[in-house]
């Protein structure tokens, strides 16, 4: 097959274009170069001779036509001769439609636009914040109804979510709590043994695990596991209009979808925290035994000395709060999904990132609060 070429014969104000070689779509880069080499447009008619074009494609024909029109040739002044492709009538007409559509101007960035955009952003953020508060209120209202109408609690759904978010999370939560506390004890031992204060590794592990790490790690793992699952499950139901279907049947989606998830997480996260605490202490105990040769009875008695009555509770009391944050952010983002699979992915990511952020923020607030009230 010959390469595409375009030769131009100028005849006064008229052009005669001779197309040769491969004019299929695969030759498009070459054709584009040939077309760009055309000089400024004539005032008269343009005749395109297709008799030597091989495999003329509609795309290449369109490129020729639009280039001529952009050069200033009126569509009606273009004629085609020599076994012209059958679709040129269609293209000629599309060329006219294209001109008609070309009038609308493009949008440009102005200072006004930037300020307006900022204001719009602020308004949207304000609405979002109000939306979250309203959402929390709706969940609370549905929960309130459950006192007068226990059926609103959806027992089977609650149990299922407790199983999925709680029981199935036990292995990973245990493993991570165990490993992290081994790491903390190991690093602590490195430092403390320089002062001969090995025994304080027990204090370090006990207080760190019970006050902070047990609950925080559990909350972060659960945010990654269940926060994303909540957002994705509810998001897909949004995309399938399942939530709308529920509303249309007079069933409140908050009641059947959101409340069971929120309640389930609030109920299981303290349990998971207790497991994480136990596994963390076990990890610290094991490392103390192996690395520092602290026997188990000594570890336990030292642990009891280091514990204040509130140490364990100050960790555990945070668990339901973290659970509430994770569940509300996850389900809220799920409910926000609209229109496309891309939104689903984006909001699932947002759900995980925000719930981890809120958990850490709440933890900081708790830390200050506990110091202030001497808990």
């Amino acid at each position: 097959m010959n390469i595409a070429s375009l030769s131009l014969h100028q005849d006064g104000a008229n052009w005669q274009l001779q197309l040769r070689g491969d004019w299929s779509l695969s030759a498009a880069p070459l054709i584009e170069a040939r077309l760009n080499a055309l000089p400024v447009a004539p005032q008269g008619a343009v005749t395109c001779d297709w008799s030597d074009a091989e495999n003329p494609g509609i795309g290449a024909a369109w490129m020729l036509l639009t280039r001529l029109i952009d050069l200033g040739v009126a569509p009606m002044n273009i004629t085609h001769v020599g076994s012209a492709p059958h679709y040129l009538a269609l293209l000629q007409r599309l060329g006219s439609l294209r001109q008609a559509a070309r009038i609308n101007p493009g949008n440009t960035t102005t200072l006004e636009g930037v300020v307006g955009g900022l204001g719009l952003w602020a308004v949207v953020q304000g609405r979002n914040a109000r939306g979250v508060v309203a959402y929390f209120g709706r969940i609370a209202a549905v929960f309130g109804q459950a006192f007068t109408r226990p059926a609103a609690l959806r027992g089977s759904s609650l149990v299922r979510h407790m199983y999925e978010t709680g029981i199935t999370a036990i292995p990973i939560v245990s493993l991570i709590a165990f490993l992290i506390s081994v790491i903390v004890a190991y690093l602590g031992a490195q430092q403390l043994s320089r002062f001969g204060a090995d025994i304080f590794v027990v204090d370090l592990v006990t207080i760190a695990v019970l006050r902070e790490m047990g609950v925080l790690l559990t909350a972060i793992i659960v945010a990654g596991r269940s926060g994303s699952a909540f957002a994705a499950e509810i998001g897909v139901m949004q995309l399938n209009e399942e939530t709308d279907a529920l509303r249309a049947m007079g069933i409140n989606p908050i009641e059947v979808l959101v409340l069971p998830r929120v309640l389930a997480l609030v109920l299981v996260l303290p349990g998971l925290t207790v497991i994480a605490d136990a596994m963390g202490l076990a990890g610290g105990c094991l490392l103390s035994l192996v690395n520092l040769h602290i026997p188990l009875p000594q570890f336990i008695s030292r642990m009891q000395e280091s514990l204040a009555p509130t140490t364990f509770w100050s960790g555990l009391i945070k668990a339901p709060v973290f659970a509430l944050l994770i569940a509300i952010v996850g389900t809220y983002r799920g409910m926000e999904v609209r229109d496309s699979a891309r939104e689903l992915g984006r909001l699932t990511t947002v759900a995980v990132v925000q719930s981890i952020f809120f958990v850490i923020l709440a933890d900081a607030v708790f830390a200050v609060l506990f110091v202030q009230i001497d808990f």
Partner: protein
Amino acid sequence: MLDTGFNPVIRVQGLCNRFGAQVVHENLDMEVRQNEIFGVVGGSGAGKSVLLRSILGLHQQNAGTVALYGRDVDKLAAEDRSAMVQSFGVTFQNGALISSLNIAQNIQLPLREHHSLSEKTLDELAEMNLLMVGLTPDVAAKYPSQLSGGMIKRAALARALALQPQLLFLDEPTAGLDPISAAAFDELLLYLHAQLRLTVVMITHDLDTLFRTCSRVGVIVDGKMISDTLDGMMQNPHPWIRAYFHGPRARAAEAQGVATSEVTAAAQGVAVAGG
């Protein structure tokens, strides 16, 4: 090289498809000729979509051969297979536009994949395909979720036409459209069929579309296909076909089809200009 002028364009012989104990197709034969609009009908669950998926190579049949342009698709070398896929366009039932890409990017997707084109050329080709299906160029920057059902069907058609196929497969192109949009889509299809000299295989439940556009119809009954012209189909004694083509909806559609065929030329203009 594929001979896209080969007649018949599609020849399916002895096709069998089973899902477990459920037999969908049993020795199904089908033939689609050059430059016709071939409608595929059948009851729900009769295997219309499975047949389409078998032809497209999206579903491996249990037995039988599918030949496109006289070549058995199961025996094609990889590069021939790629050329084959590029030689037809497909629209899926719900459009199947990629939701994370805007309409122009959706149309350009196959072009980018199979050709090395400049951005300017890509934009021009996307514009051409949009204009061709009766959409305005400002649709190009929109995302599928921002379009109405009728516009999505047209955008999907624009994407199917992007590689300039000679053969077009449409899966329920007018399902879910209001009668005016559906009728406009019929006219658009007829216009493009005439202008681009396409061969079209169309699955449809829409009797209006069937009577308006199709030159021949294949009915899937009892796992086999009965193909005939519409006139022939009307005479067919098979009970399901009789029920289908002589039901109350069919009679209305038929009466309307006769009435509208006289204003074809005028309607075609509307179809292309209207969005």
